[in-house]
């Protein structure tokens, strides 16, 4: 979302708040926090491969973004992911990019 997210640390992000993993309730369908993070990594990787990047969970605390050339960076949550992905891939990560949409539709 912006640089301040990193400054303020890893407080809960809105994307953590409302889904099956929402902190305020029992996860329906038996989804655990770990399952949810793995689901997040799997989905994000389907998008990130378009940019030659991969994401991995790091002990349930944060995520590690890696490039094919071996560069890596730690990100706390989804909003912090995209600016880092853009710097690492040197490409604009735009969900309205026709080529990306077509690639996602082929998944």
């Amino acid at each position, binding site marked *: 979302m912006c640089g301040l997210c990193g400054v303020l640390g890893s407080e809960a992000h*809105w994307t953590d708040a409302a*889904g099956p993993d929402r902190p305020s309730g029992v996860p329906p369908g038996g989804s655990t926090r770990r399952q949810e993070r793995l689901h997040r990594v799997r989905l994000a990787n389907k998008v990130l491969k378009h940019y030659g990047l991969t994401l991995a969970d790091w002990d349930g605390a944060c995520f590690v973004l890696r490039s094919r050339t071996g560069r890596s960076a730690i990100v706390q949550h989804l909003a912090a*992911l995209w600016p880092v992905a853009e710097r690492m891939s040197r490409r604009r990560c735009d969900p309205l990019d026709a080529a990306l949409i077509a690639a996602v539709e082929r998944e």
Partner: protein
Amino acid sequence: MAAADLIPVNIVTGFLGSGKTTLLRRLLASPELANTAVLVNELGEVGLDHLLLRHVDETTVVLPSGCVCCALREDLSAAVRDLYGKRERGTIPKFDRLAIETTGLADPAPIIFTLMADPVLRHHFRVGHVVTTVDAVNGATHLTQHPESVKQVAVADRVVLTKTDLTGREHAEALRAACRRVNPAAPIFEAAVDPIGPEQLFIGDPADPSGARQDAWRWLGVAPGTPPPETAAGQVSPHDRDVYAFSVTVDRALDWTAFGIWLTMLLNAHGDDILRVKGILHVVGVPTPVVVHGVQHLVHPPVHLDGWPTQDRGTRLVFIVRKLPRQVIERSLTAFNRLATVGERVA
């Protein structure tokens, strides 16, 4: 602490001379707002003699990697922290609401950002309704010539047309239509004729469960394909013409994770041009609607509603954007959402 327990902050904004202080003075006369603290950016000609009135010097810190909406208003943060400290020490009355009057040229987004991102304030305050005043005498000119004015209307939860008693009916209706084009979901009041008290303008914001439902259903009423405004030559400015609202729908329940990936990516790429986004979502595994609400790069904590009003449980997102195509946004969201069903969860 639950959102409903946080102190609501109402932002009163509007262009220069549009009647912000007059409106605020009128509102503060209500007994319901007797325990309201007030912060003002500029001391205008109309005096406010409220008990907890404070003045804020405008000092904005733009972070190196940040955009304008993600600017931290250090002055505001310090002023609100100071107020809260005095409230807790008992040196000022225990106010239960805060009203902030912005400068006429202010962008409300950094104020919202400061309240949501400040590590202290976010645990004690929440953003309530943003109320925007539009002056019937000069408002049409402001909307035509000043992008700040268009943005103030776009981020509003409530719009108040002022000075309509000084113009003809036709003029007031044209201004109402212009505001409606920029922000089709916010109720529009006329200060001269409508009842405008705390109940209409301040109370019932999204963190209030009853308010969230009412507000969410209002947004649902926005037409799916509200087109950009007609561009009658000489009548609509580039600022006005480029900002428009539309809603998108998704044909199946949303996977929350896929939605989070998509919206964070969208706001990172286009947040400057997404003035508002509000959605009533049918999320996989969640039986009741989830409301999301964002202003540019900022997204409020999602709110769960009690239930759906009808059998229609479709997801609908309303966007107020600057020159972004509805069809592409809808196709992109649908594609990302389907990612979750490919060898993953099924809606």
